[in-house]
């Protein structure tokens, strides 16, 4: 065993320098050079202020905004997380029923599955197009505009499955809400 300790120690130090420092630092340098925005969290700015990340979901509760999916961590990011409730959990059953009632009361439409279930990360940036469209009338009412305008904006923000094969159609909530604010500024609400 002892004869192996010296090469083991030297190899470990060498691997720490190579794979633990040189490799990630080289990737960091490269990232800053070729993709400064993407590699720093895809931050979204409005009027010079960071309002979030295009990739990370955030909470929206106001009637004039598209609402994201339920989140087990309430869109806290340090750390994010899921409910991890099992398929026969009575607690989950109760939560789903509660969310369904709230959703239907708010939107006057039946709730799609993604609107009543919490995501895996707690930070899902997307909702289904059905979920988004079901919220259009409520949003239009709060902003005092025609529902067709909201529906049109939602349609413009639908991402389709990759090559028609992988993933689901979805709508990015933050980007759509930014577009809504641009198209029809809210009556004096919000802290922005």
């Amino acid at each position, binding site marked *: *065993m002892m004869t192996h300790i*010296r*090469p*083991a120690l030297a*190899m*470990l130090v060498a*691997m720490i320098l*190579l*794979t*633990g420092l040189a*490799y*990630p630092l080289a*990737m*960091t340098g490269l*990232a800053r050079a070729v993709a400064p925005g*993407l*590699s720093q*969290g*895809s*931050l979204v700015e409005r009027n010079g202020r*960071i*309002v*979030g*990340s*295009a*990739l*990370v*979901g*955030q*909470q*929206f509760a106001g009637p004039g*905004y598209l609402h994201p999916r339920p989140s087990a961590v309430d869109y806290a*990011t*340090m*750390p*994010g*997380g*899921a409910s*991890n409730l*099992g*398929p*026969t*959990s009575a607690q989950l*059953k109760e939560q*789903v029923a509660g969310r369904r009632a709230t959703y239907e009361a708010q939107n006057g439409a039946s709730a799609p*599955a993604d609107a009543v*279930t*919490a*995501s*895996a*990360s707690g*930070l899902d940036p997307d*909702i289904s197009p059905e979920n988004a469209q079901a919220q259009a009338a409520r949003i239009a009412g709060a902003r005092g505009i025609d529902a067709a305008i909201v529906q049109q904006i939602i349609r413009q923000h639908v991402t389709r499955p*990759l090559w028609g*094969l*992988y*993933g*689901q159609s979805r709508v990015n909530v933050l980007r759509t809400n930014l577009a809504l604010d641009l198209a029809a500024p809210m009556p004096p609400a*919000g*802290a922005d």
Partner: protein
Amino acid sequence: MQDLIGYVLFCAVLTAGGWVLAPFMARVYAGERSFLSPVLGPVERGLYRLCGIDPGVRQSWRGYALALLAFNLLGFVALYLILRLQQFLPLNPQGIGAISPDLAFNTAVSFVTNTNWQAYSGEAQLSHLSQMAGLTVQNFVSAATGMAVGVAVIRGFTAPKGVGLGNFWADMTRSVLYVLLPLSVILAILLILQGVPQTLLGGAHATTLEGAQQVIPRGPVASQIAIKQLGTNGGGFFGANSAHPLENPTVLSNMAQCLSILLIPVGFCFLFGRMARDRRQGWAIYAAMGVLFLAGLLAIWLGESGGNPALGLASNLEGKEMRFGTGLSALWAEVTTAASNGSVNAMHDSFMPLAGMVPIINMAIGEVIFGGVGSGLYGMLLYVVLAVFLAGLMVGRTPEYLGRKIEGREVTLAMLAFLSMPLGILVGGAISVTVPTAAAAIQEAGPHGLSETLYAYASAVGNNGSAFAGWGAALPWQTTALGLLMILGRFAIIVPMLAIAGSMIGKQQSPVTAGTFPTHGPLFVTLLVLTVVILGALTFFPVLALGPVAEQTALSAGQTF
């Protein structure tokens, strides 16, 4: 239908990728020149000189095992110290403190054994230095350790007389330099272009449109995620792992990561055929693994495709991300537990009962369906020894594999290695549900609580690292018990397999006769698959009946707990 066509294309690309990688790996492990030699050859030789290693020295199986154990032991000590001292070390922009001794032990063991079980949340509990110089390093070298053992065991079964098992230092170094590092660079760049952060900056502070404060966590993520997948490690930068939108932001990043998990393991099947100088032998192993892979994938997909009638959900999206849905979540669950990866893009705890059972089976049989890098292949060779032994018993002939006799010593060692799985999972799990301090980890009432415990122990002993994450993995009892079992699950298989390789390598090659059982045809593939299924089923069926099967029955009756 969209899902199934997607799966077929995925499997085709995966197979092609592994097939292309195999001849390259064959050259690398033989110490021959490859297209990367002009760049990496000097680095390789420099490393040997620095460490006082002669790569040409042939090691006995004992020498190989001791070098490996020494290297892993030191790796453990170094990682433990980094985790305990991170508050005094640089690259800690969030000012994160030390993690507790039991959690540091668990995490260090977990990364050294290629398990990457996460009882912590990286974004909240680890500094950038811990992620890079601690975890990323072990992601590379624990994977390289598995690949080295894989290659040594293949040599034991296939190398002509006069060729040894090889040299651990050379096999490990070549795995890192020529295979893992170049592939990681490619994947890291792709992930960066998809939006995975790669920066030394800490969290960005945002004010949301509705005026709330939100921290966008960042760090050197892409470089770590690349090797976490290619090395079948699975430990995420973030607690939510590859479900986190900054760790796996797009469908393309998802497919690239999924592919990376199984690329090297598939390559090892074909590498085996090449080193055996009979490619059909590699295809036979690939076919057996492929059958088991497709069976598991279809079972998860079917289990998830009906929604959850007990909760009135048309689609079971609890614990799943919108961009992936049930189709890509099912694929990932199969891929990550067929391999010893353990990263997740959806929360397995919220899967339907039978869909959640498949990952448990995949892990409990030892992750031999392509499996971990290197470890999947030597794990499957363990079953091969048992399969040809069973075939020999049936016809009353001394079993042979690749022209070498499989005798009492090899079968004894194979059984010894095999038994570490049921020992760790069933005995460890039974204690965990009986002792109140340990049973406090269970989140769910009803049969799902047993499934959670079973999943955790299968994951630890199988060196997988995924979890039914509602289960309280951070309890000191569990961090300690699971840490010890990860060591068992890793080294109680590696050492006997090296011993088998050591005893196989000197054996006389017997000529092929009419009485030789061919090990490349459909009959052998069937026998191998049945050996895996029957041994796995006999061992684990009773406990699966009490967990996932009982839960499915309850769910069908509309019962919740």
